[in-house]
């Protein structure tokens, strides 16, 4: 390497500020979360008692934690699969087809993502309203006006799926734009030659588009895991509050309930540790499972 001179200094100037801030504001607090998970602490007083792994022991016998775990996993799987299929298809259509008002659609589809969760929750509460909501009004055309109303947020078996719909609605545009960005870098010539060979749209989608943006899809899988854990918390807080009877409780809402409402701060942090390890592990697994030879173009 010829450019030895100043290389180290350059690297230091570029990387150090980011590393330092990252350590101060992310690593250190995370270590604190791990540390506090070993204590019994109400959150206010100065009485912190070291209890070792006791918080984790309680956690593994806590049926409410298992339910929130189950709900979170269900949300991650459902939201990821549905959103991904929709956004990939829409991205392919908008970037490959000659559609009038392409820009218009792109702008509209992205809008839910820029809305605050508070706004979205207000919207979906109105949609899910049992007697006057949009959804039941439309369904009553088919089911007859006399049918029992469907309680989208009140039925313990439905409430999670109602959350899935809201979250997919919110996320499609975001991932669509991401996929479009990487699709636009797929060379046009590949499609032209495929056209000459008479390959259909679906064939092109699976054999050209998907493989070439595979790296991008893998990236978004990680995002899906992280953001679903995070957003499901915000949605649950704003829409259901974990109701009915905890049926819509997720990881972080349960953590908050324990840390603040039930004055078990250490226990809450123990949940935080599990969530952290879980999301890390899951992403690692998904990453391994989706590993392919990168395609160059």
């Amino acid at each position, binding site marked *: 390497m010829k450019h030895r001179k100043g290389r180290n200094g350059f690297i230091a100037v570029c990387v150090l500020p980011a590393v330092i801030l990252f350590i101060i504001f992310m690593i250190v607090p*995370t270590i604190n979360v791990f540390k506090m998970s070993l204590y019994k602490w109400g959150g206010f007083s100065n009485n912190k008692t070291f209890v070792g792994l006791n918080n984790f022991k309680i956690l593994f016998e806590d049926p409410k934690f298992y339910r929130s775990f189950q709900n979170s996993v269900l949300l991650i799987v459902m939201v990821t699969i549905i959103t991904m299929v929709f956004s990939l298809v829409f991205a392919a259509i908008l970037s490959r087809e000659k559609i009038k008002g392409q820009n218009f659609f792109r702008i*509209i589809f992205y809008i839910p993502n820029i809305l605050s969760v508070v706004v979205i929750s207000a919207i979906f509460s109105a949609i899910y309203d049992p007697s006057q909501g949009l959804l039941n009004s439309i369904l009553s055309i088919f089911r007859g006006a006399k049918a029992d109303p469907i309680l989208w947020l009140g039925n313990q078996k439905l409430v999670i799926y109602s959350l899935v719909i809201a979250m997919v609605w919110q996320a499609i545009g975001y991932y669509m734009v991401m996929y479009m960005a990487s699709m636009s870098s797929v060379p046009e010539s590949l499609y032209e030659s495929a056209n000459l060979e008479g390959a259909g749209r679906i064939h092109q989608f699976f054999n050209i588009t998907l493989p070439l943006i595979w790296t991008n899809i893998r990236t978004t899988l990680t995002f899906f895991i992280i953001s679903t854990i995070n957003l499901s918390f915000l949605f649950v807080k704003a829409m259901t509050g974990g109701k009915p009877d905890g049926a819509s409780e997720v990881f972080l809402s349960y953590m908050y309930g324990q840390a603040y409402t039930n004055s078990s701060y250490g226990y809450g942090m123990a949940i935080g540790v599990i969530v952290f390890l879980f999301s890390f592990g899951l992403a690692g697994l998904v990453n391994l499972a989706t590993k392919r030879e990168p395609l160059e173009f």
Partner: protein
Amino acid sequence: MKKNGKDTLYKVFIYIVLLLLAISIAVPVGWVFLASVKENAEFYGNPWTLPKGIYFQNFIDAFQGAKMGEYMLNSVIVTVLALLLLLVIALPAAYVLARYRFKGSKLCNIMFMGGLFINVNYIVVPIFLMFVDGDKFLNRVFGSGFLLNNLFVLALVYASTALPFTIYLLSGFFVSIPKDYEEAAFVDGAGYFKTMFSIMMPMARPSIITVILFNFLSFWNEYIIAMTMLTGESKTLPVGLMQLMQAQQAAANYGRLYAGLVIVMLPTLILYICVQKKLTEGMSLGGLKG
């Protein structure tokens, strides 16, 4: 001929699907705007009726009664500051981490990757406690605290917690640039900084715009950190909105609440529509074609 017919059918189908999705988005969002000009009594009936008239008082109430104007200024300051800090810090770091191998580069990459999994929701209280301790110390030495209730510090926290995602996104782009560009620049005698600023950064423009857009949204809508770090009277817009919801629970003032919702989402809508054009331009103009 046959193929043409099938094609038309396909096109029609696509348009219907696209329109359905567009409607499912536009109608509810439009509904919030309509609801914001409804009078309070109108909120108890069917939520999908049109407003009887335009009741603009809701907005005046929100801006004056609920101080949304002041909160908006705070939000603008914090968001802009945080974006500037983020770009200044993250861009060089992402570039170097993506394109240089050095001692510890692997560790740094892994660290920032891992940072993606650190959820701000559970580190906010530890950060806060850290600031409390810091302020206590500053108080003893200088007689006044500095870290809490400070818009600049809040912006710094925003920028820092956005680092992993931003670096991840940007280095993903930098990695994809062929080596030839830098080599050509070095051959021309450009130094490291010059290469970075005058060759690589301009090429990264589309990615930078994406980064700005994403982070603008998350900073603008963020409220957990803001609520925790700003303990005094000054608040950001979403925190103000939460407060409005609290107040609404007490007095059932729905009109003002929906006006508040509109105030929060309007700037993001406007900015998004402006940036959206740039984003599209950037994608086709930028050096992506190789």
